[in-house]
């Protein structure tokens, strides 16, 4: 699989968009403009960008507490996304849910989840619906390495394999679960090998190499569309910042942070493109300024939107 120049630019733009959105969110949160708490995935952008570059709009994505990138890369409307995180009534969830629960079914962003591992069983259902109706749509369920230790991981992968469901289980293995390093919660190296327990292919890739992620995801998605069942794709990534924005990371060795930041998926793709003239002369500039504008518009929309409507707190409990 070799990407056309426009595809490469789209993938690059997707990573940059995720990065800039989360940088802005961190800034806004630090300024006290966002209630609650937020988790950013800066440094892990190659996964949402690479995986979502293989998806159609009507494919389903389930994501996590660290899910901004997946929603953005899947093509969620930035304005209503930002408004939700701000807690405004124009947000996708009417301000009822915030950063951990953004959803836009029309973009296939089925919903983020505040329960670690909580999306895995739900992914079985969205994938079953595709199979049930004979549709070619697939489901991608993103989750972390920590989540791979929840009982739901086991129950879900077992059933997905048994029923040959069209799911891509995409694990972002960033070596940390909240404040705890992986060596303290898993004896085995990596998550991909766990696929064998279910008779499911397990693939592990360098998650800061966006093209490696894209190619592995493309293959898994193609398998799923052909009705050949699920794949467990592990992407080895690094968490640049704390568990949540504002986390002082007292528990984390400085050189671990340094090592993480040394792996920049965006820089890697840029330098790769440098050789070709895909980027053109001011290509990066163009991308950055276009995205800057999108984000400015989204933030303005959110900031100018009216606060969440108290009446909405009583609505939609039942259909």
């Amino acid at each position: 699989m070799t990407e056309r120049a426009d595809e490469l630019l789209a993938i690059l733009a997707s990573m940059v968009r995720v990065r800039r959105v989360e940088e802005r969110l961190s800034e806004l949160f630090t300024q006290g403009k966002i209630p609650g708490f937020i988790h950013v995935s800066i440094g892990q952008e190659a996964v949402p960008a690479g995986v979502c570059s293989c998806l159609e709009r009507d494919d389903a994505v389930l994501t996590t507490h660290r899910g901004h990138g997946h929603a953005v890369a899947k093509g969620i409307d930035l304005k209503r996304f930002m408004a939700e995180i701000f807690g405004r009534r124009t947000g996708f969830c009417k301000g009822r849910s915030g950063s951990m629960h953004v959803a836009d079914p029309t973009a296939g962003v089925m919903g983020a989840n505040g329960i670690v591992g909580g999306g895995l069983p739900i992914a079985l259902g969205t994938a079953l619906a595709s199979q049930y109706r004979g549709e070619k749509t697939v489901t991608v369920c993103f989750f972390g390495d920590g989540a791979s230790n929840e009982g739901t991981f086991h129950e879900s992968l077992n059933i997905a394999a048994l029923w040959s469901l069209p799911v891509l289980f995409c694990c972002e293995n960033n070596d940390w679960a909240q404040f705890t390093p992986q060596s303290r919660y898993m004896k085995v190296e990596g998550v991909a090998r766990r696929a064998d327990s279910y008779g499911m292919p397990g693939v592990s890739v360098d998650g800061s190499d966006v093209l490696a992620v894209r190619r592995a995801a493309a293959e898994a998605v193609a398998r799923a569309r052909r009705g050949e069942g699920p794949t467990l794709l592990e992407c080895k990534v690094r968490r640049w910042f704390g568990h949540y924005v504002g986390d002082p990371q007292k528990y984390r060795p400085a050189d671990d942070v340094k090592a993480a930041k040394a792996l920049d998926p965006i820089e890697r793709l840029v330098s790769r493109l440098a050789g070709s003239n895909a980027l053109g002369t001011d290509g990066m500039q163009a991308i950055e300024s276009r995205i800057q504008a999108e984000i400015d518009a989204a933030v303005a929309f959110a900031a100018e939107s009216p606060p969440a409507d108290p009446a909405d707190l009583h609505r939609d409990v039942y259909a």
Partner: protein
Amino acid sequence: MRETRYVKAINEALLEEMARDERVFIVGEDVGFGGGAFSATRDLLQRFGERRVRDTPISEAAIVGIATGAAMRGLRPVAEIMFADFLTLSMDQIVNQLAKVRYMFGGTYRMPVVIRAACGGGLNAGPQHSQSLEAWFAHVPGLEVVMPATPHDAKGLLKSAIRDDNPVLFLEHKALYASKGDVPEEEYLVPIGEADVKRTGKDVTIVTASRMVHHSLEAAAALAAEGIDAEVIDLRTISPLDKDAILRSVQKTSRLVVAHEAVKAFGFGAEIVAMICEELPASIRPRVARVGAPFAPVPFAQEKQYLPSAADVVQAVKRVMVS
């Protein structure tokens, strides 16, 4: 009308709704090949095939997740959790996911999910296979909780639950599966949220549900012989509560007994008593009593002495009749 067993009525409701709506499917343990632990799903696999009757591994959290995700994509799942005691293994998926999807995600989703489970005692199944946990779920916004007492209501309510666009926890009493009652030949529905006056009376109101309806009717008959005329209200639905039906009756009788099989403390009887205390005009201060199980797990051999009985209902009525 024909005499039909409670479990057969449930089986008929499933069959009719699956025939009626192609989006309806069944998922759970032993529901297909085995025809169901209590044979509520008997012959459905043969009739509708592997696609629509899905045996799962023993994975209760996943079973509910499958139903939730499928509903988010437009299907109408009927999940079976074999014993209500095992709902404890699906609590996150039921409470944090299924019940909150519509609200949490902006009201865009409709969640037509039914979770069927066998509750209650009476078969000497012991502490982990006999519980009545409905009060937990009634405390969870986003869920509806249904507990039919008769074959008629079981069929009509299950059909309504399957057509309902909200998550419904459908609690079948395992000691009632073999019970018989009249079920119409023709199709009918019983609306969710409507209590049914199973016996009219003027002296005291007995509010109850599920198997305790039968004990309460037995108690009412015994009381009638002593000149006490009891009204028996079968809630049928625990959430949403049919407050009007309860208030109407208590305003008439000004005496209330709430009877359920669950542990009395923090059971649904408490909500009903508190509700009438708040909602009745100050002029009416009814005498109230609750009947429920003692504060202990459901024992194996002492189950008969443990479970609330008609005699307990009679005693409670007599407590509220004095003065």
